[in-house]
């Protein structure tokens, strides 16, 4: 048995030593001299028998040219402060996605992409639109989800002249929403300007032209009018032009490199289905929001804050605390650039 072990150990050791030897040079034709280094290629192009110049054959093993250095990515300015639009657009082919959750049970999402540095298209759900049943119903509840599509176009800051604010003209329109037997729709045309006054302070101000419609059985049967019918009221029929226009705005302060304080005031429609006066059926309510945006990484931002849906009443119980996560991606832009 010991002999077997000794033999195995010897074989293993010998094999190991043999494998450790360098690989011998392959014998060359005509002798055993070491191989010569290859000659440099002839710089002159090859000439054919009839005197034509021929291009040298491409070397398939030539090293690839170094990749072009990537352009530094410009900063992405957010298309919304907290609830109101800004005068900034997403860069071309940049994708944006935001998901929000609040203490009122609202879940919303917003998805956009930039078009050619001059426009932006998006689809979103909002929980800002609220409803009341009648005059006695003092607390409005939200209608959600309320799906909207938006298109914005504009010019970025300093594009036309130095000091020019970013300006966007946007249109947002909802799909028809059927809730509690009533059909509602909203539409909003906005013009907004945004300016980075200093690297750490930005101002947003704009105007919105609102319209909304409500359709359903809005009247209660009475002796004089025993048969009630569905009918439609709209903001543009009920209100004066000035009642459809609202000013909104926001402030953005960046005390730390990755943290910004945001405050904005916007407007949201409120429907009252069976309010006695038609003028009261569709109203615009001011919404105050404040919060903080924290840039966790270049592609993800975390926002949290407080939203007070009807600041006229300043009702603490209506205040909603929200948290939202937004992502931006240059992936599509890079893919497009790689095709050029």
């Amino acid at each position, binding site marked *: 048995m010991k002999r077997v072990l000794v033999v195995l150990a010897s074989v293993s050791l010998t094999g190991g030593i043999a494998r450790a030897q360098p690989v011998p040079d392959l014998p060359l034709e005509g002798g055993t001299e070491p191989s010569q280094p290859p000659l440099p290629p002839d710089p002159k192009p090859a000439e054919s028998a009839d005197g034509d110049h021929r291009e040298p054959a491409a070397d398939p093993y030539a090293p690839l040219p170094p990749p072009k250095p990537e352009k530094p*990515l410009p900063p992405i300015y957010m298309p919304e402060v907290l609830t109101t639009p800004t005068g900034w657009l997403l860069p071309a082919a940049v994708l944006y996605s935001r998901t929000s959750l609040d*203490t009122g049970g609202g879940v919303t999402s917003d998805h956009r992409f930039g078009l050619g540095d001059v426009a932006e298209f998006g689809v979103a759900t909002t929980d800002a639109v609220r409803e009341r049943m009648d005059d006695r*119903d*003092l*607390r409005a509840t939200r209608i959600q989800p309320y799906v909207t599509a938006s298109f914005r176009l504009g010019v970025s800051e300093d594009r036309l002249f130095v000091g020019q604010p970013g300006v966007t003209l946007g249109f947002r329109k909802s799909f028809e929403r059927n809730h509690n037997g009533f059909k509602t729709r909203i539409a909003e045309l906005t013009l907004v300007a945004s300016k980075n006054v200093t690297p750490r302070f930005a101002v947003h101000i704009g105007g919105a032209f609102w319209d909304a419609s409500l359709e359903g059985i809005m009247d209660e049967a009475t002796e004089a009018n025993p048969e009630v019918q569905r009918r439609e009221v709209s903001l543009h029929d009920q209100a004066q032009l000035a009642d459809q226009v609202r000013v909104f705005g926001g402030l953005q302060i960046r*005390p*730390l490199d*990755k*943290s*910004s*304080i945001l405050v904005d005031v916007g407007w949201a429609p409120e429907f009252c289905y069976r309010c006695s006066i038609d003028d009261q059926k569709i109203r615009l309510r001011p919404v105050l929001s*404040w*919060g*903080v*945006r*924290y840039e*966790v*990484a*270049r*592609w*993800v931002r*975390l926002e*949290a*804050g*407080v939203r007070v849906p009807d600041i006229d009443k300043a*009702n*603490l*119980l209506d*205040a*909603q*605390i929200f*948290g939202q996560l937004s*992502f*931006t*991606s*240059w*992936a599509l832009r890079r893919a497009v650039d790689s095709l050029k």
Partner: protein
Amino acid sequence: MPKVLAIVALAWLSAARVAAADGDPPAPSSAQPEVGRLITAPTAWLPRAGVVVGSAALDLTAVTRDSRFDADLLLSFGLGTIAAVDVGLDKDVRECGACDGRPAPLWMARVAFRMGAPQDALFPGMPAVAFGVRTTVAAAGDTERARAATAFLVASRVIGPIKLHAGAAADDASIGRAYEMGRVVHPFAGFEWTPAQYPKTTLMADFMYAPLFAGDAARTEWIAGWGVRYQALAWGTIDLAVRHRQDESASDSTVLVRVTGTFNAPSPSPSRR
């Protein structure tokens, strides 16, 4: 049985942390802490970005009296060093039907958003300042539709071994759509003292208001607390405190044991997408 297990677990955890604290350097008393609550009252301290502060408490009402204990659980997420979001469960708010006995605690799931600036941020000597809103997500008790909301402004300052907190809070409460209490504004205050001889130990006291649902209405009642916070670990503290409430005798006072930990959340990759 679960109550006993919970108390045993808390006691074991406390003892283990105290034991493990030996040799740990005490937290510098002059540095701004990150725990956003004293006993009941909020402070202006905000967690740094990416820091999570978690606390769990047993309010031993009466392990001594009627075999009931209160508890709370709170997680605070630091947002950009200038804000925090608090998510938690607590029984600070109470309810009573005819109010001829001791009110029962009301479980409330609440969320708060606090925003502010650390001390000395704008000028030397400036106290830390925070403005916060706290709302109710859900309640569990006889008054399930009860909601409470608070907006508060608080200033905190470290002055040597002493930390002072003072502020004002506006409380509101409702029961469904039938009743709203209306805003009630109250001051609140807090005090901490860390003796030089015991750098890991802090004596603390605070005074705060909370809603009390009485039948179909609500009012506010004050809560006064005092106790000791022990910096058991660099990242963890243990509080032992006593809380007294308005219109209650000393024998109704509750004893609170709270464990608090501060953790750094992992940050995502900064790479571009």
